């Protein structure tokens, strides 16, 4: 990096106009496990690989897809502990919004609040940016929505997106297979096929996780047996 005189803050601009720490954070995301999301006409599905470091790990105790509110769920790529901090803060912000306005927080608002937190960590002293990108899936009065939030704090709304190790292949696959009026079940199948593309080893209900939200506006993480059912439909 060569700018040791700027070493008191990790997020000082480099001469080329970039924030190098954020670039590094994006690299950390890029080496995380693949996750993806697809917005269907009547819902959203998010999915991720759940590769555990050893077969001795109790996979039932690991849950990568989390619920933020009853109608909003999130999955991440990158550093798990960082994502836990963000999930905790987002849940609290959603609850504070409800306390103040007596209205369930709209998806865009929650995404904006989370992105603000992530941006704060790129402009404060003594902290580092989060090493995760989040995919937020929700269903509110505006319909199904899918947002991606990056370590820099920028967020985008996607029809379908992927992050992590296999991002370029996965995105290419999604571009080919995505259609505007796809139904939720078809979207789940597409998600599974996309994960299968770059999957090393045998895909099963135990090493992927799928979360979905339909027009009932309740976000659920599928159980391993439900994932197995979908896998068999895809075979």
């Amino acid at each position: 990096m060569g700018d040791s005189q700027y070493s008191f803050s990790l997020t000082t601009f480099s001469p080329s106009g970039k924030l190098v720490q954020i670039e590094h954070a994006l690299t950390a995301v890029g080496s995380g496990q693949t996750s993806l999301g697809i917005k269907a006409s009547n819902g959203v599905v998010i999915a991720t690989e759940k590769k555990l470091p050893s077969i001795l790990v109790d996979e039932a105790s690991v849950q990568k897809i989390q619920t933020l509110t009853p109608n909003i769920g999130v999955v991440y790529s990158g550093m798990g502990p960082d994502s836990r901090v963000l999930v905790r803060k987002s849940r609290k912000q959603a609850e504070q919004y409800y306390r103040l306005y007596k209205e369930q927080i709209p998806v865009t608002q929650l995404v904006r609040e989370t992105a603000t937190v992530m941006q704060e960590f790129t402009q404060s002293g003594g902290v580092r940016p989060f090493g995760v990108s989040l995919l937020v899936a929700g269903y509110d009065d505006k319909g199904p929505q899918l947002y991606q939030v990056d370590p820099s704090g920028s967020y985008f709304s996607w029809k379908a997106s992927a992050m992590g190790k296999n991002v370029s292949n996965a995105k290419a696959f999604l571009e080919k297979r995505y259609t505007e009026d796809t139904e939720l079940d078809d979207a789940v199948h597409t998600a599974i096929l996309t994960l299968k593309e770059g999957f090393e080893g045998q895909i099963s209900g135990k090493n992927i996780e799928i979360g979905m939200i339909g027009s009932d506006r309740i976000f659920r993480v599928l159980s391993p047996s439900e994932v197995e059912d979908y896998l068999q439909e895809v075979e």
Partner: protein
Amino acid sequence: MTRFEESAPVKGGFSFDLCKRNEMLVQKGLKPSSYLKTGTTIVGLVFRDGVILGADTRATEGPIVADKNCEKIHYMAPNIYCCGAGTAADTEAVTDMVSSQLKLHRFHTGRDSRVVTALTLLKSHLFSYQGHVSAALVLGGVDVTGPHLHTIYPHGSTDTLPFATMGSGSLAAMAIFESKYREGLTRDEGVKLVAEAISSGIFNDLGSGSNVDVCVITKGNREYLRNYMLPNLRTYVSEKGYSFSKKTEVLMTKITPLRELVEVNEGGDAMEE
């Protein structure tokens, strides 16, 4: 710039600075402003399959009935409800706040809330305000450890009881409970007893009145019976109606339609980069 906002509690809420000033003003003869008190009869009892809570629906402001049909049974969690007596604003705010905390706790632990959790959150909050938060609560619910019923006093002490009453009508209601309560009541017997106790408060206490609200909580289910009994209906309404002699003549009628829709700026949400 070391501005690092942690999720620390927002500084606000009660500041005791003005209490001394208020005391001084009262001594000088200023009448303190009246606030909405709930008078109230609230009750709870444990029956065979769970807990039943009951409350009247009158809110008073001194000698005036401010709300003839207010809701005193507050939601805390899907399996926990809380009746509140005392200052209406205090009971509302405290139950709302603890309900919010319980919801976050459920997200973090992935489990249903327990009644003792709600109890401890409420009593620590009330104790830290040394009785200035005037909320007397009857907390009841069913969780994995079974049915529970507690009373919480404004200073932060609690009781765990099979049947409980609070509020200005508590003596009237307790008389009914003490004579008729027994263990192992069925749902219908329990609801009847609760309604009787609340009615006793409604008819014998000036601070309680109007209707009876009942909430039955069992394992995995709850029934909120709003206005279960309406013993104080307005019996006579004049059919003739009222006629008022005309005072001013109408010269001209003009209707101006207001613009129907609010214009929404679409596409304002996505970030540019």
